[in-house]
């Protein structure tokens, strides 16, 4: 190997280049080396590659130009992962055996949308490879303009803050929309992310078309004894920095005005032995994030301030159905749902899908006098 790759094999952090080499497949290593040297990728559009019956889940790649010979094809499977990304070694070993047989022995746990990615499955083996994958119990995830593989945090499986059952919701929704995951028919991608609490460990507010975030509605529970164990300065700092000004700490008394609290989790995170979220639990549903959009980056905003979430999550599914239908009808190509809403008007969207406007949906009411009386 030459020096440019040698550099990337050195050091203390585990090297992905060593892993590429460990696959024993020289092609990808050589291809990657050439890209680094020439400072550009050589992949062209993979053309239409896929599994019979599906129109999504496989990302096709063929190298073109000078690199065409090095790596003529390099397709990958996006595999729908289990909720919470828990695995047994048993099933992982099956996946390893499977990728050894059909692919180039290379995996990624997980892609940024949380699909399990398996690399190097040749075009003529896509169908049998998929069939064997299904037998291990796995299906493909989304790609293209479809409902995408959702994401959820570890939630109730391991986290004391979980206010909704993120794993169950994820699994239910993925089953509900599995047809739409595999058959792109929307204006663009549609991503759902489910976080158990406002810490939002799925970063749903920053990068999902629909964010489901566990929240509580009643008062924060205070364990006065546990509170006493925190230092004065710590309590003072938390009171000072509570963003809603809900906390007062005076003469040794720590008080929360729950009416003013905006459930940011900050005090709970810091004083975690003493404070707990309330018991009246559900979720806020946010809409419209997109990392980089037609109008700049969009962060997700409030659509439903509070929704109770119990199986079978009927209300949530109905909401998603309404959103998808509306967007399907009004969206332009390559327009994410938040952008369609912005373009057409949030109020109009609410009216169309039958949701009452609420002041919780906006920071503040409009400042310009240009509106329609619809």
């Amino acid at each position, binding site marked *: 190997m030459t020096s440019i790759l040698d550099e990337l094999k050195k050091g*203390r952090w585990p090297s992905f280049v060593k892993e590429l080499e460990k696959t024993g497949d020289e092609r990808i290593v050589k291809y990657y080396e050439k890209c680094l040297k020439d400072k550009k990728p050589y992949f062209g559009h993979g053309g239409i590659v896929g599994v019979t019956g599906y129109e999504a889940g496989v990302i096709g790649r063929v190298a073109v130009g000078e690199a065409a010979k090095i790596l003529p094809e390099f397709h*990958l499977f996006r595999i729908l992962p289990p909720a919470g*990304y828990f695995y047994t070694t048993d099933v992982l070993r099956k996946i390893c055996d499977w990728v050894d047989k059909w692919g180039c022995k290379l*995996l990624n746990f997980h892609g940024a949308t949380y699909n399990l990615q398996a690399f190097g499955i040749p075009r003529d083996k896509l169908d049998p490879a998929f069939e064997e994958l299904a037998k291990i119990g796995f299906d493909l995830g989304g790609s293209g303009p479809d409902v995408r593989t959702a994401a959820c945090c570890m939630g109730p499986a391991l986290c004391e803050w979980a206010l909704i059952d993120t794993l169950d919701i994820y699994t239910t929704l993925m089953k509900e929309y599995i047809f739409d995951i595999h058959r792109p028919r929307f204006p663009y991608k549609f991503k759902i992310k489910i976080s158990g609490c406002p810490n939002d460990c799925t970063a749903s507010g*920053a*990068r999902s078309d629909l964010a489901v975030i566990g929240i509580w509605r009643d008062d924060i529970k205070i364990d006065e004894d546990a509170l006493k164990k925190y230092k004065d300065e710590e309590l003072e700092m938390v009171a000072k920095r509570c963003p809603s000004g809900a906390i007062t700490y005076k003469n040794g008394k720590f008080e929360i005005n729950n009416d003013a609290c905006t459930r940011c989790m900050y005090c709970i995170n810091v004083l975690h032995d003493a404070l707990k979220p309330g018991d009246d639990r559900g979720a806020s549903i946010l809409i419209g994030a997109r990392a980089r959009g037609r109008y700049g*980056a969009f962060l997700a905003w409030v659509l439903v301030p509070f929704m109770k979430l119990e199986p079978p999550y009927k209300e949530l599914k109905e909401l998603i159905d309404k959103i998808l239908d509306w967007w399907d009808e009004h969206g332009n190509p390559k327009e994410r749902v938040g952008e369609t809403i912005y373009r057409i008007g949030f109020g109009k969207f609410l009216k169309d899908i039958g949701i009452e406007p609420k002041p919780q949906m906006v920071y503040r009411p409009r400042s310009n006098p240009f509106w329609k009386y619809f």
Partner: protein
Amino acid sequence: MAMELRDIGPPDYKKFLHPVILKNYGKWVKHENVRPGVIKHISETGDVVFTVRAGIPKFISSDGVRFLCDLADKYCDGYLRFTMRHNIEFIVVKEENVEKLIKELEDAGYPVGGTEHSLKAIINCVGYVHCNMAATDSPSIAKALYEALYDYFKKTDLPERIKIAVSGCLNMCGATNASDIAIIGMHTKPPKVIDEIVHAQCSPIDLVKICPTYAIKPKKVKKNGKMIDSVSIDEEKCMYCGNCYAVCPGLPIHDPENDGVSIWVGGKASMTKQGLMESRLLVPFIPNHPPKWEKIVEIVKKIIDVYIENAMPDERLGEMIERIGWEKFFELVDVPFTYQHIDDFVFAYRDYRKGISFRFTKHVK
């Protein structure tokens, strides 16, 4: 082929949960940070689970996975998971296994850490390894940064956590738009138009629709004696987003001389404190310089130094910058403020400084 194997959906997660987790599902009441990389989860039943977090490479060979499985079999009854930042987490029920597992992991070169106020795993996209869009190579940038910042992953004494993400292009796969520090690949020249390919493989009308800045217009052009449909690109309007190349190979945008990276700071995805914050531009352009990426590493280290020196306890980088002011931050990291820093896109007005609430810095003479 058996169609009943279509649309089966994700596997049942319950099959993959450790029995202790299944039993205590939804019953956790407390967590303790035992040491960097290890969290003790305590249930109301009194049961306890330790998660041991380790860094793994973005691409991992099946043999690499098998090695990790061996460890999980030995110490975790065969149960493990991956996190939202793509770390591996071992599920340890027997406390005495924690240190043994850590030793084996570290010996094999897998760093244990990344919990609490540490450098978290660096999220990076596939870059040159699998993508056709990459303006830069994210995996090697992430590697270079990991080497320089390794110790921060293993310690927990930062003011708050630091999250770095690297995207090979402005599609921003990953959460670069809301990261403490984000590196994003950038083109700086419009695509070239290869009329024949556009004509043969692409739809001019779709291209017109796809361009966010309305830079693409349909055109007719004479090739080999006959008129064919193609497009023209208004170089004044094109902002090098690559949207058009993504759907049409006849508009190549890659350019080794003029492709490079930009550096962004101050994003945050959680709802805590002031809530969501977008990453903001710090350095508009550095030419690509693999494999050591010295310049990126240098600036990121400087950012972290400034952060450590100026942040209050529990304050994320973006929160600190908002408190001291962006003008002060530019002064502290000593990066030039240029035309590119001033937004001129649709919501530009939002960021203009209304009123006079600024601080004086060296920028004002």
